[in-house]
């Protein structure tokens, strides 16, 4: 059950109290009932004993009467004479007894032959049901109509005395009704404890009487039991039986069980309201206590719900010093901490997004715009209010709409991205309807059961324009170099060709000075041809694509040095190639680098004996530094900066030939690979050229 603690706690306490009270009540009730029953048992037993004794006592009296009658001289004489004598005396004795009490309803004298000789009283009882005895026998109760009576029969002997040697001449019989004085009954009833019913009957069964009317005999179980037992007669009775000594009778004193249990019920009646009050007070106390605890808890709960809903200014009002107070205070501290860090990160985020030059736009899984930064407003021309909740398609030309919608759908369903997680170039549409090129970096993140897309958009109109301009410049440069290579070389070839023809075909007509001058023309046109070729090679480098692969630098250096050694075979040249680690780069271009450096070294070691060139490498800060070292002419360190410039030369043309492009080409290639090139040297003490290549395995 989804109940609050405030409700559960009192219910729990009330339930607990109720259980305790119920247990106590039932124990108390049981105790009282048992005590009542014990008391009732004792009383019933005593009452039944006393009743039996009272009856025994009155019986003893009647038996004495019977004995007295039997021994009356007149009676003896009467019977002994078979009624012929002493009639008057016998009658007198009978009358005396028969009218003695109200209960004596008849007195009779019978002879030994079983004939009724004389009788008095109202009842004609008929033949005796029991034999006479010398000690006056008492008969079972006999019922005639509504009357219950019994007999006391005493043998009459000839001498009126005991049984010794005297013959029985007849018997005296008293017939009596059951009678118990009202006083005795009240006394006994009181003894048994109110509501008691006194019963008398034969031990063998009917008839039974309650001393007023005839009642059914109680069950045998009751009669045989020595202790009080219960039985049903209309209602549950508690009954105690006792035999009446000297008779075949039994008495029973019984009380209705409800009467016995009355004190227990009274106990319940008295205690139940008290218990109810205790439970109620307990429940109220528990409710009050739980409110004391749950009110601050509810406050914390509400506050945390409010905070979860975004109200970070919410604080808990708990003015206590116990654990709940501590909970409230630490909750507040935590909230403050959260609010602070949230505010911090929000400020940071706002700082980033508000000042970003790029557009930052977030959209949900339906492609509806959820966030729009000032950069976006500047680029697209829409204010934040104009775009929030609107579809992203408003930012793109019509022709992209379908692809955009299916792209979002596909990504949300399958997480398969074509654009997400990448940077792509697309076209955007401004508020004024104009299109512009843009660069989009798109990210996606799951957000509260949905998907959030964040795009960073850069207007690349300017960049595109620059790229276009650069392309145009390149094309121009290309056509220029084409012209240079084609149009400049043709006249040069003509000059050179015709100068040569002049020298060869018309040598005879030319004097020595003319021949020398033609030789100068020849030299200079050659040199200019070389310059043009080098210049073209250099300019071509800037446009050439770099085709990167793993390059075995040692192998490459070997082929280069072999070529140089072959070209310079007319002089002693010691070239060593160390074990060079491989590099990553364009094989052909790197070959040109090594070739230019080694040829450079060969050129400037001319005249050295021996001329030494070393191609080697050394590791430096995680990358490899390759170098080409020679013992040649070296250079003045002051001019080291000019070494790699185009057409820059540190030596006069007469000393060393060259166009001054070789090292410029080296620098350009290394730089295009992202590496660095530099040189160390001293005049006449050799030079070392170093270069690095990113990605070389240092």
């Amino acid at each position: 059950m989804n109940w609050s603690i405030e409700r559960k706690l009192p219910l729990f306490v009330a339930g607990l109290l109720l259980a305790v009270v119920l247990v106590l009540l039932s124990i108390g009730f049981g105790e009282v009932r048992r005590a009542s029953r014990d008391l009732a048992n004792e009383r019933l037993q005593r009452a039944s004993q006393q009743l039996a004794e009272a009856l025994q006592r009155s019986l003893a009296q009647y038996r004495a009467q019977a004995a007295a009658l039997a021994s009356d001289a007149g009676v003896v004489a009467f019977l002994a004479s078979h009624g012929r004598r002493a009639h008057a005396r016998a009658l007198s004795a009978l009358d005396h007894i028969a009218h003695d009490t109200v209960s004596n309803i008849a007195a009779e004298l019978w002879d030994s032959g079983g004939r009724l000789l004389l009788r008095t009283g109202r009842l004609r009882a008929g033949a005796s049901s029991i034999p006479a005895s010398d000690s006056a026998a008492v008969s079972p109760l006999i019922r005639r109509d509504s009357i219950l009576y019994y007999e006391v029969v005493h043998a009459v002997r000839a001498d009126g005395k005991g049984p010794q040697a005297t013959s029985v001449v007849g018997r005296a019989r008293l017939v009596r009704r059951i009678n118990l004085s009202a006083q005795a009954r009240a006394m006994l009833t009181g003894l048994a404890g109110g509501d008691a019913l006194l019963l008398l009957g034969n031990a063998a069964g009917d008839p039974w009487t309650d001393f007023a009317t005839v009642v059914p005999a109680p069950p045998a179980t009751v009669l045989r039991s020595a202790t009080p037992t219960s039985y049903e007669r209309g209602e549950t009775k508690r009954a105690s039986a006792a035999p009446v000594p000297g008779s075949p009778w039994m008495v029973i004193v019984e009380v209705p069980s409800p009467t016995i249990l009355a004190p227990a019920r009274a106990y319940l009646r008295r205690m139940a309201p008290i218990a109810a009050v205790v439970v109620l007070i307990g429940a109220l106390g528990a409710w009050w206590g739980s409110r004391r605890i749950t009110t601050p808890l509810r406050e914390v709960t509400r506050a945390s719900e409010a905070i979860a809903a975004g109200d970070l200014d919410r604080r808990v009002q708990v003015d206590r010093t116990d654990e709940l107070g501590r909970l409230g205070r630490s909750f507040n501290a935590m909230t403050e901490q959260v609010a602070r860090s949230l505010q911090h990160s929000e400020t940071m985020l706002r700082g980033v997004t508000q000042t970003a030059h790029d557009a930052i736009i977030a959209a949900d899984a339906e492609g509806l715009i959820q966030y729009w930064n000032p950069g976006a407003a500047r680029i697209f021309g829409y204010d934040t209010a104009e775009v929030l909740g609107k579809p992203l398609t408003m930012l793109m030309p019509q022709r992209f709409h379908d692809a955009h919608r299916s792209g979002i759908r596909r990504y949300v369903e399958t997480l398969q991205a074509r654009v997400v997680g990448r940077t792509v170039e697309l076209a955007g549409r401004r508020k004024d309807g104009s299109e512009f090129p843009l660069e989009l970096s798109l990210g996606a993140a799951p957000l509260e059961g949905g998907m959030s897309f964040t795009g960073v958009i850069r207007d690349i109109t300017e960049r595109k324009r620059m790229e276009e301009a650069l392309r145009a410049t390149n094309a121009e440069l290309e056509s220029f170099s084409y012209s240079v290579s084609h149009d400049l070389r043709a006249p040069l070839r003509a000059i050179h060709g015709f100068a040569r023809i002049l020298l060869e075909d018309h040598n005879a007509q030319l004097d020595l000075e003319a021949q020398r001058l033609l030789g100068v023309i020849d030299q200079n046109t050659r040199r200019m041809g070389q310059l043009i070729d080098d210049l073209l090679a250099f300019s071509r480098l800037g446009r050439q694509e770099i085709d990167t692969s793993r390059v075995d630098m040692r192998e490459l250096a070997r082929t280069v040095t072999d070529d140089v050694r072959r070209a310079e075979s007319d002089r002693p040249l010691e070239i060593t190639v160390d074990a060079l680690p491989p590099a990553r780069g364009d094989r052909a271009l790197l070959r040109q680098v090594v070739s230019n450096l080694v040829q450079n070294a060969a050129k400037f070691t001319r005249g050295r004996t021996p001329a030494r060139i070393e191609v080697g490498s050394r590791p430096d800060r995680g990358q490899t530094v390759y170098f080409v070292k020679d013992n040649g002419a070296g250079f003045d360190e002051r001019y080291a900066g000019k070494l790699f410039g185009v057409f820059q030369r540190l030596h006069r043309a007469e000393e060393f030939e060259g166009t001054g492009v070789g090292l410029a080409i080296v620098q350009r290639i290394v730089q295009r690979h992202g590496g660095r090139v530099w040189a160390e040297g001293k005049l006449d003490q050799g030079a070392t050229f170093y270069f690095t290549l990113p990605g070389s395995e240092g």
Partner: protein
Amino acid sequence: MRPHEVEILLVEDNPNDAELTLRALKQRNLANQLFLCRDGAEAIAFFAEGVGPVPKVVLLDLKLPKVDGLEVLRRLKADVRTKAIPVVVLTSSREEPDIARAYELGANSYIVKPVDFDAFARAVSEVGLYWLLLNHPPQ
């Protein structure tokens, strides 16, 4: 000079280059049956007349007035009657796109004219020797 007598067809607009080429070939005695076209249109016209013997080799400059050399090359190689004629591109351009395009269109050789006359003469005469004397064309 009739087309059936032509051994070398030189397509060259620059008279100086034409003269130097001619001189280089002459020194090897290869220029006796040479026909010179001054532009691309002339070269195309030469083949348009086309019956009878065809040249053993065409030396073709690329940068030509009217119709440029690559177009001439394309037409020659596109025509079943002329596509077997060896075409040697003889030009000042060492630009990679030109070289690639020329071979794509079916050029048989691509020679960059050196500025140095000695080298130029050597190249031209070797080309003439090869295509006129060593090469064996289909009959």
